[in-house]
């Protein structure tokens, strides 16, 4: 089974972000990492490969800094890495990113595409459904468990984590599966994996390699304009500590406050 994992490189979740007047976002010394949701997608791909054989290719769109995320995925055990980059891609919006990824997936050839449910920088979750639509493959998002998968029969069944519970869905392959954290516990890269990753050079595909019209990608073709990025207003007021003679006394005082504030 050939599996493609779509990934993104993002600032570490512990990063303290700063933004300047020109909307440039910086994160100090914090490392760039593989998007945390994508780690679960990589792990699931590796487990499926271990069970069913085949190959796992990790793909990311972005400039050369993106290679750190690809290296992390290779260190975990992915077989090959493909970087999609062309100056013409810079500033692409989510639907265009989905289309470029879909074109790359068609070029690689896949029985299954795995993604994290969203990237923790943009937080849109738009790419997996856009990708599935472009490929005309079924989308199975918010997947907490792959119940069964039959590569020969080209079917799978998954549990999707929705607001009110779990929807169990069966589908044909190929399909796009976007995963949530519950699905597995990602492995740490092995020593051998890290060595392999350190020497790894990803295959790089440009707009021309993919047959993407440069005028149809990038900032100029985006359906949206990012007019400004700014820090949220700080939470006003400082904490008022409630103390008392006993837990009951504290509870009564706090209840008074909360009822007066009309939040209860």
């Amino acid at each position, binding site marked *: 089974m050939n599996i493609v994992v779509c990934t993104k490189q993002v600032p570490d979740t512990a990063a303290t972000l700063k933004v300047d007047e020109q909307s440039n976002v910086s994160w100090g010394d914090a490392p760039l990492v593989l998007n945390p949701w994508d780690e679960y997608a990589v792990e699931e791909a590796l487990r499926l490969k271990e069970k069913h054989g085949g190959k796992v290719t990790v793909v990311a769109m972005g400039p050369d800094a993106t290679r750190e995320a690809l290296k992390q995925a290779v260190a975990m055990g992915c077989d090959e890495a493909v970087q999609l980059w062309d100056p013409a891609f810079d500033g692409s919006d989510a639907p265009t990113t989905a289309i470029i990824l879909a074109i790359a997936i068609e070029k690689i050839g896949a029985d299954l595409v795995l993604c994290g449910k969203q990237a923790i920088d943009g*937080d*849109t979750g*738009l790419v997996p459904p856009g990708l599935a639509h472009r490929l005309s493959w079924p*989308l199975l998002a918010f997947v907490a468990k792959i119940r069964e998968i039959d590569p020969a029969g080209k079917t799978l069944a998954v549990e999707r*984590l929705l607001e009110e519970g779990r929807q169990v*869905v069966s589908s044909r392959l190929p399909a796009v599966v976007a995963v949530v954290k519950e699905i597995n516990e990602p492995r740490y890269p092995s020593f051998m994996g890290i060595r392999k990753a350190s020497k790894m050079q990803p295959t790089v595909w440009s707009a021309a390699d993919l047959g993407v019209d440069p005028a149809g990608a990038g900032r100029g073709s985006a359906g*949206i304009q990012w007019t400004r*990025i700014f820090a949220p207003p700080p939470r006003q007021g400082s904490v008022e500590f409630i103390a008392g003679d006993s837990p009951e006394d504290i509870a009564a005082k706090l*209840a008074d406050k909360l009822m007066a504030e009309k939040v209860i």
Partner: protein
Amino acid sequence: MAHNILVWIENVKGQAAAISHEALGAARSIADGGKVTAAVFGPNAGELAKEAIALGADSAVTCDDATLAEFRTEPAVALLARLATDAGAGVVMAGASTRGREVSGALAVALNAGAIADVTALELQDGRIVATRPVYAGKLLSAIAPAREPVVITTRSRAFPKPEADAGRSGEVASVAPVLSEDAIASKVVEFVAEGEGEVSLADARIIVSGGRGVGGPEGFKPVAELARALGGALGASRAAVDAGWIPYAYQVGQTGKTVSPDLYIACGISGAIQHQAGMRTSKMIVAVNSDPEAPIFKLARYGVVGDLFKIVPALTAEFKKRLGK
């Protein structure tokens, strides 16, 4: 500039999702003289269409074909794309629920549209739509404007008020045929396993009581859950508690869990790591109970109690039961 807006009303077992009505109200506020059309699929679609009109839609389109009885992305997107094209909709809106996110991402590609996910505010600037949405898990905000129409917009749960119903409003309800037949749809819903039945869902909750590392184990969630129940609120958890296996992932609030914005968030034994703050910092009021007076959570909190949560939380539960007459 008038914007004709198509709003997808999410149908959960014959009831409209609250988030869809919030999206409908948001649509009305930016239509600027344009028409707002509700699209309702699945069981009870006719009634939900009338409800949508009372809540601000000018008209509604329904389809209660069997292919749309249980939500699936493919048939919903195929029909919405056709409706948006036929109606010349400049904007398609939905709630940023799990299903809404699936629909919006696929629809944006289908319509060659821009997409703005999970917006928390919308306004018109000289007739132009400008959306505000959190990025980097709410550590920053971005202002985004459509570069062209159509554009697909999803609204964050509880970011927009539910509109007031006006039973005097009237509008046309048209029933349409689906675009995809069953044999053209690859995914089949096998079953739905409801979880946390009788509990308040985190996404819709007005009050959330969460437990963290400080609860010490699975048993430690009992008093936290009891306080949530006494307040008619939802139970939440920090990543530390979920990763320790004390409570299922569905309860996790934070950067790799759910993002919530209740009126009141009570954090019990949660230190307040930056990743947890990302998921709850937009709560209207935060109360923290923690044994460590230096815990970062107190920097976000309006009220704090330094002490043993196993003493304070049950006392709060008893106090609120008394006051709320339970």
